[in-house]
């Protein structure tokens, strides 16, 4: 599948929660090629300030219509600029970039925190009708509007919050052992804070379940050319998050 640069037209753009937006772009060639776990590299303005593109995970795809959707948090200048675009405007996208998730599973468990849930949403849809279990964590229930977004695409959803305002009190890694006890998953996919992914990967290894994780790093090129985003592989070789990842097998990049 080849990567392209294309002007995606804004089809729909609205707030899902405070500071969180859902943006659907008409970009048929990218939609056709996109795999769960891949991302688009988006130019947020015409001028030189900000200069670089912003990487955003592909959260949904409508291959027939030719749309891709991203879900993002407004954190700085770039996402704020993006957030101001009304339907009909164009967004310059490079994509789909990176290596996606391995879909070779029958009983998948998806573990996500924060904006890490965005690529897992696409993954969950792509895995349907397989029975997808999702485990999601957030600080408070206000952060778990994600639950509604995942409802239609999961067999079951488990939730933790740091303060116990929704689901189990604690972190996803606290609930995870129970899930692994009760159910036989053949693959775990984790995306979120590094600490969380490490915890998940450790438990997965102990149970002998193959685990994939998705990394984030500051990116300039997004295609493996600039070495802004590399990390150390456990084999001593370097990996590029943008093009070797963002999805890796846990043991490839995490010392567990």
């Amino acid at each position, binding site marked *: 599948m080849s990567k392209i640069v294309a002007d995606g037209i804004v089809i729909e753009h609205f707030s899902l929660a405070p500071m969180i937006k859902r943006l659907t772009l008409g970009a048929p060639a990218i939609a056709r090629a996109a795999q769960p776990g891949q991302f688009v590299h988006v130019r947020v303005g015409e001028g030189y300030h900000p*200069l*670089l593109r912003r990487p955003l995970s592909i959260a949904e795809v409508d291959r027939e219509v030719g749309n891709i959707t991203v879900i993002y948090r407004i954190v700085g200048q770039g996402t704020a600029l993006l957030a101001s675009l009304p339907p009909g405007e164009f967004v310059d996208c490079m994509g789909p970039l990176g290596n996606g998730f391995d879909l070779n599973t029958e009983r998948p468990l998806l573990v996500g925190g924060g904006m890490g849930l965005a690529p897992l949403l696409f993954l969950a849809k792509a895995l349907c009708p397989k029975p997808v279990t999702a485990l999601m964590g957030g600080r408070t229930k206000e952060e778990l509007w994600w639950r509604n977004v995942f409802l239609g695409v999961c067999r079951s959803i488990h939730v933790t919050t740091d303060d116990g305002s929704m689901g189990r009190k604690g972190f996803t890694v606290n609930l995870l052992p129970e899930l692994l006890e009760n159910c036989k998953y053949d693959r775990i996919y984790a995306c979120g804070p590094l600490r969380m992914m490490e915890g998940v990967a450790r438990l997965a290894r102990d149970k002998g379940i193959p685990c994939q994780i998705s990394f984030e790093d500051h990116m*300039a*090129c997004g*295609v493996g050319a*600039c*070495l802004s985003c590399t990390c150390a592989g456990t084999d001593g070789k370097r990996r590029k998050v943008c093009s070797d990842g963002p999805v890796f097998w846990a043991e490839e990049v995490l010392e567990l």
Partner: protein
Amino acid sequence: MMLAVDIAGIKMKTPVMTASGTFGSGPEYADFVDLNKIGAIVVKGTTLTPRDGNRGRRIAETPAGMLNCIGLENPGVDEFVSRILPGLAAYDVPIIVNIAGATTDEFAELARRLSVPGVAGLELNISCPNVKEGGIAFGTDCASAAAVVAAVRRNTALPVITKLSPNVTDIVSIARAAEDAGSDAVSLINTLLGMSIDIRRWRPELGNVLGGLSGPAIKPVALRMVWQVARAVKCPVIGLGGIMTANDAIEFLLAGASAVAVGTANFVNPRASVEIAEGIRDYLVERGIKHVSELVGRVNENI
């Protein structure tokens, strides 16, 4: 043919090259641009032994620019020659290897090992701001710049381009020293040394504290230096620093650059190197100019 140039014996279809460190070794961008339409590809800085580069965050954005402290991550020269170079033979584009030694001897040895078929020329990176040994130190002193060039010169018949640092009081004297020591061309500028601070965490944004500033922000400084150097040396000058558009490239040609290189622009527009060449051709056609060389150094300072 109106765009074809010969820089120190390296024959390019267009005067628009890609800048070291911003275009991988080429294939990374092959989905977006036809590599055969690029003037020359300058590959990432290559060292004698593999390097992991710097720890921590490696890029930060600044107004109309970016800082980087990659720190010359690369698989080392032998891996380059045995594994990467053969793959580039599929493309009809000159490959110039940017080399960085920690010592003069290392530069010489790199030149020797890279004097193989498939390499069209060497660019001596005596201006990397992001490594502890060597790097920029060679580029801020005439004698050591000359020593590096001379050592490389003895070890290779390939065209040698010396890449100059802008972090100096007098770039002209370094350019002259490089030319006198046998450099076939000079390229400028490498990045300006800069810094940015995260005011929430009271820490430098970059893992290496300091980094190299590139992008449109530095264009006026780069253009000034190209103009100063082009008037002072006889060898061809390759101009770079903040080139985003054909108009930017034309400024560098008028200032005296015989060719230009596109760096940070590749990140913003992966087709930049080819679109800029097309834009230069349009400019020539509109004005009835037969060949791009007719622009070189033609800025008229007598106002």
